[in-house]
Every structure is written in C-alpha cells, then in structure tokens.
C-alpha cells in the first residue's frame, strides 16, 4: 500500500478510537520492527481474546512484530483459536473455511501479482496444527508442490484447542485427549520433513521458549518466500487451557520441550541460503547505521 493510505484525515481524529490513532502515530507501518522492540510501539494485534497464558497468542504477537513489510502483508488464517484473534489484527486477513488456507493463499498471491506486478505483497498463512496437518494437509502440501511463493506458519499446540482438546495428527503418541480416550496410537505427523520433501525453500521449527528466534526465522521465511519459493515455520505453542496447566505453566512446558523433543531445526535450499547471505551485508550496514543514529 501507499503509506499515505494508513494516515488519517485529521478531521476524523476526534471520532476515531484511541487504539487506531495509536496505530497510525506509533504503529509498525513503514518501519522495521523486531521482537526486541515489543513494548515500544503499537502492535498490530489489538486486545486479543485468547486465554491467559496462551502460547499461540504469544507467537502471534511475536510474528506480527517481525513482519518485514506490514504495510504490504496479507494474512490468511483458518478455523481455530487463531480465528478469534485475526479479526482484531490491523492487516487485511481472510478466514474462509477450515483447512483451505493454503488454497486461498495460492489464489490470493497469484491474483495480487496480476494486480500489482511492481509491488511485493507478502502472503502469509497462519493456522493451527489441525488445519495444517489434518484437515488441510493436502492443500498445505500441494501449495508447496506448486511452488507458491507464500509463507506457511503452523501454531502447533498438539491438539484441537478451540473445540475442546481433541487429538490431532500433531499430538504426541500416547497422549490421552478427547477422541483419543486410550491415548494416541501414532506418532506426530512429520510436517517439517514433508515440507523439505515437498520443496519448501526454507523450513524452521521453533518454540515460544525462544521468542527472538521466532522473529528471526519468520523474517527469513518471508524474504525467501518473496524471492525463492514456499517456506514453512512450525512453532510449538502449548495450550495451558486444554493441557490443564496453570496459565504460566504453558511457557514452562515449552521451555522443557525445547531442550528435549521440540528442538530448533532449520533447513534451507542452497538457493535460499545464497539469497539470505546476500542480505547480510545490507543488514550489517543497516544495523551499523542505526547504531550511529542512536
């Protein structure tokens, strides 16, 4: 978008809600923000209604603080807890059906390329593990096979949270959950491996236990999707509500798991790696410039 669109006619200032004024005056549009800047600018997500201690909400905020170009970022969500937060996000976003998020994003990305051939429009899918690995797995994979230049993020809370804690393909083997009364009988679906095989140019497995890593990987994923091919980020986002934990214990669970079976993983194609290397001098120069300015 033209940044002028984000600005407001001064005559409206007295009737617009305070948070909208804050967003225009002190939001991330036209600026480069990072996870480290949280607390110093107006976030895109306004007063989300998710549970106390929700790690999906935390991951959502971390991602939204790390968008390289929020003013030209288009988000596609899916049915799940994320669909309660999305309407309160100050970016154009779609909820259409459960599981079709990567198909919708494919159509969106191609159409935006036709309408705005000279602009970069980053299309980002953010959906839960049920949407990505169960009901929408075929569309997730086919968008990767086709090489759609979109970023797919999975919020992996290892169960269906919004419908009340049922087993998902991403649940741990043996986990006793609704619809798995005697424990889950099969392993977690290996979506990161599938992503590699399906042709994703960049794949990362991260956790809310490592907030800065989420931001860094997400930025890389968007830049690679823009220039090389599809990218995938899987974020461990434990759900204290359905795990019957105290709100603060969700993040504790993430911190334990990140040391054991939910460790950081990153994969990139040689092409993506070469591309990301080309950004490093520019990034270094920019950081130096910022240091000098400070």
């Amino acid at each position, binding site marked *: 978008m033209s940044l002028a669109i984000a600005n407001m006619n001064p005559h409206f200032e007295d009737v617009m809600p305070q948070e909208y004024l804050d967003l225009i005056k002190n939001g991330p549009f036209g600026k480069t923000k990072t996870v480290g800047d949280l607390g110093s600018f107006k976030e895109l997500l306004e007063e989300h209604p998710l549970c106390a201690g929700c790690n999906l909400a935390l991951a959502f905020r971390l991602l939204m603080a790390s968008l390289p170009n929020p003013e030209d970022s288009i988000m596609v969500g899916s049915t799940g807890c994320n669909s309660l937060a999305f309407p309160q*996000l*100050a*970016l154009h976003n779609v909820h*259409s059906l459960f599981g*079709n998020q990567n198909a919708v994003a494919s159509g969106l990305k*191609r*159409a935006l390329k036709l*309408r*705005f051939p000279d602009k970069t429009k980053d299309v980002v899918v953010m959906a839960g593990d049920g949407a990505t690995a169960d009901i929408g797995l*075929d569309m997730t994979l086919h968008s990767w096979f086709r090489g759609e230049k979109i970023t797919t993020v999975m919020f992996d809370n290892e169960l269906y949270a919004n419908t009340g804690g049922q087993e998902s393909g991403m649940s741990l083997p043996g986990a006793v959950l609704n619809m798995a009364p005697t424990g889950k009988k099969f392993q977690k679906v290996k979506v990161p491996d599938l992503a590699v095989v399906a042709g994703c140019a960049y794949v990362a497995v991260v956790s809310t236990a490592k907030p800065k890593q989420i931001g860094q990987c997400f930025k890389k994923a968007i830049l690679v999707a823009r220039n090389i091919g599809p990218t995938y980020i899987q974020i461990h986002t434990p759900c204290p509500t359905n795990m019957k934990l105290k709100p603060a214990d969700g993040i504790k669970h993430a911190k334990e798991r990140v040391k054991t079976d939910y460790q950081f993983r990153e994969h990139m194609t040689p092409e993506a790696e070469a591309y990301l290397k080309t950004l490093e001098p520019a990034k270094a120069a920019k950081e130096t410039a910022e240091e000098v300015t400070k």
Partner: protein
Amino acid sequence: MPVKKPELKEVSTEYMLFEAKREEQFITGSEAVREAIRRANIDIAISYPITPQSESMHLVGDLYAEGYIKEYFRGENEFAVMSEVAGAAMAGVRTFTATCGPGTLRAFENFPMWAGSRLPIVIAFMTRGINAPLTIQPDTIEMGFLLDTGIMMLHAENAQELYDMLLMSFEVAEQTTVHIPIGVFVDGFFVTHTRQKVKVVIEDVKLKPYNPALAPVPHIDMETPPFRYMKDPFVMKSNFISYAAHASWQQEILASAHRAKRHLKPYLKSFIEQENPNAPIQIVASGTAVAQSREAIMLLKEEGIEAGLVKIKMLRPFPADEIKAALANAKTIVIPEFNRTGWLAREVASVIPNNDRIIPGPRVFGGMTMPPDVIVQVVKEKTLVGV
C-alpha cells in the same frame, strides 16, 4: 503451437450480446464455453478434471496458452480449486471455473462461503449424477443440493444459452449491489458433448475488465483502509449482537440475489418462457428437459391434446411470481426432470396455489434419456383418465 491472440477491444455486455457480429458455428457445448470465455476478459481460471466438465476447462486452458487469460492452473481437488478461486476473487480479479456432480459435492462448503464473502465468481456446472453406484452420466440432482447455498443459478437449455448466459453473468455478478456468485448450469453430455448450431461473436472484442473499486466489501490487498475491520469480533460470540450481525449479513446475500434480477433481465429478457399459455395442461421444465417437452407437446398436438410449456431459465432467485402467473389457469401441471428427487416439482409446488394440480412428471436418472413419448405417456395416463 498456440495461435497468438489478436488485440481485443473492450465492449459493454450489451454490445457483446446484442450488437457484436456473430457467426453460426456447429460446435459442442464445451466449445461454446471456450468461445464465451474467449470474450470474457478473465484474469484467473482454475481447473480440475471431472467428466463431463473436463473438456470445457481444457479448452479454457488453450485460451490461456493463446493469451486470452492471464493466469490458469490445475488445482489439486475441487474443494481446493473453489478455495483458490475464492482467494483470487478476494484479491480483486475476475475468475472462472467449472465442475460437476461429485466435484460439486466435494467443493460444496465453498459455495455458501463464496456468497457469504460476496465474491462475484462465475462458475459453470455441467451436471452429472452422484455416486453410489458409480456414475458419470447426465443427471441434475446436484442442482437440488445447491438451491440454498446463496449462489444465483441459471439453467441453460442448449449450447447457445450456455454461451450467452456465461457472457451476461460477469457484469451482473460484479454489480456493487449484487457481488455474489452466479452458477450457469447445463446438462452434462447432452449439451457438452453434442454439436449444435451456436451463434458466436467473431469480432475482436472482450468484456470490460472487473473493477475492484466497485466492490461492496474491501478486497484483501492492503490497499484499502480500514486494515482492521472490528475491535470486538462478532464471530463465534454468544450474544445477540453476534447473532444479529450474522442474520443481517445472510439476509443481505438473499437481497443481493433479488437485486441482481433487474441487472439480469435486460440480457436474459425473461426468467421464464411460455408456449400455449392457455392450454389446460402445462409442462414445466428447465435445461434439456425443456427440449424434450417441446417435442412432447408436438406429439400431443398430433393427437389433438393441447399442452403448454413453462420453461424456467433461472432457479435462484426463483421466479415465483412469474411461475404463479403462468400456471394460474392450468388444470394439470407435469414436471419432467433428469433426477430422482424431483426438486423442480418441489420448488414449483412451493409457490403455486392448489399444488395438487402437479402430477409427478417422468423422472429419469442414472444416465437415461427422456424420450418425448415418455412425457406424452405420463400426460395421457395421468391427465386423461376417464376422458
């Protein structure tokens, strides 16, 4: 090697339908789809194979190779294709796709979503039977399923109507006060796989492009404020405001279809057509059942029995007033259908007084044809007992 596309001049729908130079060609229904889409200025078409629809979308693919369409690909299944088309329409471009039968059902959840999202998608359905047992044969049963999805529904009798209905649908669907999907239905095989004379536009013209600025809802492009629609979302909340928001939005979709009528009428001329309106026996039909009914009326006439015809061209919104008026003086109403459920008979029964005047018409399905004498036989058996 694809032939290079000539430069096409943008023209109005009115010019395309009524003034542009046409030539009579002996082509299949699938080829009529290609000829309509050639002139429709489509941005993105997305395809998925299913018999008897496939050939239409092959030919649309040829148009892409020739440069008439900007983007085209084969999706992974019908549910995905309808979602991909939705994404493209949400981003503000003109789209086209087609499917039929099991594909329609596979995609089903998308159709109310299209209407609810106010997407002006034009889609062709080349109707076919539903499994099981496995069938690929002609059958209009899917139309009965689609009646309450919120999409507008036109039913073509032949390839000429298919061609014209497709070309008129884009402008109607894209009106600011409409902006909902239109399905153009045609009986698979009977129309898609037979050759008929079709008057096809041969001037180097195309419809004017879709104008995203006229959409009643903002496109998902980060170009149109507001970027946040609401602070307290009405989705999934258990309170009256939430229910009222959903209810009023749904009513608005129904209202959009009714508002479409005045845009459609100049092109379609009428929502029903009549022959022998004063005859005491009236045959009501849509699609190729109309052609068979015409034959039946001729056969009946040879035997001295006067029967009339009410051809229904639009199923949604249902032209209730027109049908009620057309059948006001009918003593007996026969409704032949290419399906098992008799959805058209139910629709007609729901809008006319004394609906016991309707007698079950011949219903053929599973791929059977409907010879005119079957209609004649029903008319004679059911209406002339004791005469």
